[in-house]
């Protein structure tokens, strides 16, 4: 499960409250429920939550081995595993994180990705009920991040522990999580599968935050949302005449056609064409004066051969319209 949101939206705070490191402001109704048990008054140490910190917070004076063994060694004498058991477990974990022969290194001798994995193994060593990851890939460069992401996905399949991670990278959330929680300004905007939040966002914020989007302003007229020459009908028909409405459409849902084509939409002028990348990105100036971005495949670009400065018609599909207080 991913907690997704811009910085300052309260993802990390929520994560820390779940872990018990922070307490919610006094509110008698606040509860943290794990396995049907309210943990709000249980201390962080007794919650058995594996927390992986954003900057890993590895113990710098301990070797990798000692770092991973820490949680087991700190247990009360009765519950503490024997030395051999600890050694066994740590070696298993080292194997799991693919750092088999690095047990006697110090954190400073490891790369960022390696440290991240050690932090994970250290959290797993206490056999947590829940695994919490705070921006797990935030401090890594892009390539390492991708490798680690794939690795984490596999690992999660293997260990089967409920995992909650915080991220501001939508791609990361959509790729890794089975369910995504989108947060904004301390509130949850939507909870759902990656497909749900991406294809049927419940609020404007979710729409804007997940992927790039074009925005048009319009209003309700005679049971239809009108945006220039586009008219969208839908359940907002009952809305009062003149209610402001906003139309969102993803760049790849915009079709550009030559003017004069029968399936015309509304007019726009091509300002810039950028064809490097997996698809061709076209910046247009809409007749309403708004700047919009459209994406098309390279094949379509080849056959259409649009030119900068050319006047074209734009038609839309899969649009989403939001009015002041509810959505269609």
């Amino acid at each position, binding site marked *: 499960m991913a907690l997704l949101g811009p910085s300052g939206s309260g993802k990390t705070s929520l994560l820390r409250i779940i872990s018990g490191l922070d307490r919610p402001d006094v509110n008698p109704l606040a509860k943290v429920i794990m396995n049907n048990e309210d943990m709000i008054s249980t201390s962080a140490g007794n919650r058995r939550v594996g927390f992986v910190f954003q900057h890993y917070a590895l113990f710098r004076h*301990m070797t990798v081995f000692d770092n991973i063994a*820490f*949680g087991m060694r700190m247990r009360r004498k009765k519950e503490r595993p024997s030395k051999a058991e600890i050694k066994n477990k740590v070696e298993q974990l080292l194997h799991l994180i693919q750092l088999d022969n690095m047990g006697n290194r110090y954190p400073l001798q490891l790369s960022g990705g390696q440290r991240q994995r050690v932090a994970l193994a250290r959290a797993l060593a206490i056999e947590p009920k829940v695994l919490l990851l705070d921006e797990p890939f935030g401090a890594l460069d892009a390539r390492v991040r991708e490798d680690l992401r794939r690795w984490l996905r596999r690992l999660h399949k293997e260990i089967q522990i409920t995992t909650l991670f915080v991220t501001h990278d939508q791609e990361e959330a959509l790729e890794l999580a089975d369910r995504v929680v989108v947060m904004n300004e301390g509130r949850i905007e939507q909870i759902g599968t990656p497909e749900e939040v991406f294809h049927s966002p419940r609020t404007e914020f979710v729409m804007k935050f997940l992927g790039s989007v074009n925005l048009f302003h319009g209003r309700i007229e005679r049971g239809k949302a009108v945006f220039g020459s586009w008219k969208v009908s839908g359940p907002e028909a009952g809305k009062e005449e003149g209610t402001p409405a906003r139309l969102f459409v993803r760049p790849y849902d915009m079709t550009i056609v030559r003017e004069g084509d029968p399936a015309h939409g509304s007019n726009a002028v091509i300002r810039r064409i950028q064809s490097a990348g997996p698809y061709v990105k076209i910046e247009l100036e809409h007749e309403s004066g708004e700047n919009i971005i459209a994406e098309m495949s390279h094949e379509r670009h080849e056959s259409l051969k649009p030119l900068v400065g050319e006047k074209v018609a734009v038609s839309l599909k899969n649009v989403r319209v939001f009015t002041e207080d509810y959505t269609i």
Partner: protein
Amino acid sequence: MDTDMRSSMQRLIQFFMRCITITFVVLFLVLPLYVILSEATGEGMSVFFRAVTHQETLQALTLTICTLFIILPLNILFGIAAAWTLTKYEFRGKSVLSALIDLPFSVPPVIAGFILILFLGRHGTLGFLLEKLDTQIIFAAPAVIVATLFVTFPFVARELVPLMQEQGVDEEQAAVSLGASAFQTFFHVTLPNIKWALFYGIILSTARAMGEFGAVSVVSGHIRGKTITLPLHIEILYNEYNFTAAFAVSSLLVTLAMSTLVVKEIVYWRSGKKQTRPTGGFLESPETPDL
């Protein structure tokens, strides 16, 4: 041509810098040390030993070392507590407290001594209490300890605060989330991370405690054979024109001070050997350490 000149210019500057430093060190450190030692042993080793083993010298030595052993644990305790409060908690008046801890640095030791007399003396603020308890602090050995404590207590805290600030509380929180108790967190995580700074703070306050003159001189009352510390003893001998003995005792004090430095160097050297640990090189390219 141009770069050649510049590099030779740089070499010249480097040479000058080195000369200035060495001259300074020789003039103000090596020469005085030599003078002390040569004066102390100028009348033969037997005179030196007689001065060093004189009963009053031994008493001063004992008091100095006793003081040291009492104030060091207190300083460590206070230093860690103060640094912990200042770095790991947020509260009102934090900056004021931080400034107050520095106060002994800025108050001249003599003034500090007078403050203690006004506070703990027979006619002082707490005088009535002491009279009831029939104890005396000022002009007795406890005064020496209190005065030394006053002038040395910021050292440990001052060494720890910047380090603990930089380290933050991440590791402590990690330890707590892994199930460690507060006690375990302190001894397994916090203490190992601050031990060098702590050690350095101890060295500094040791050196200061052994050499403290001003505050101790005011509160001790100069009772021979009772409240005299090594620096006071040296002054007394000097004032009595007993130069050889004064220098002999001086050399004793210098030796003590030097030995703390030697201890420091040895510990640093050994820890350095343990910490130079890159064996075999990195498997992945090392990134900028952000720890």
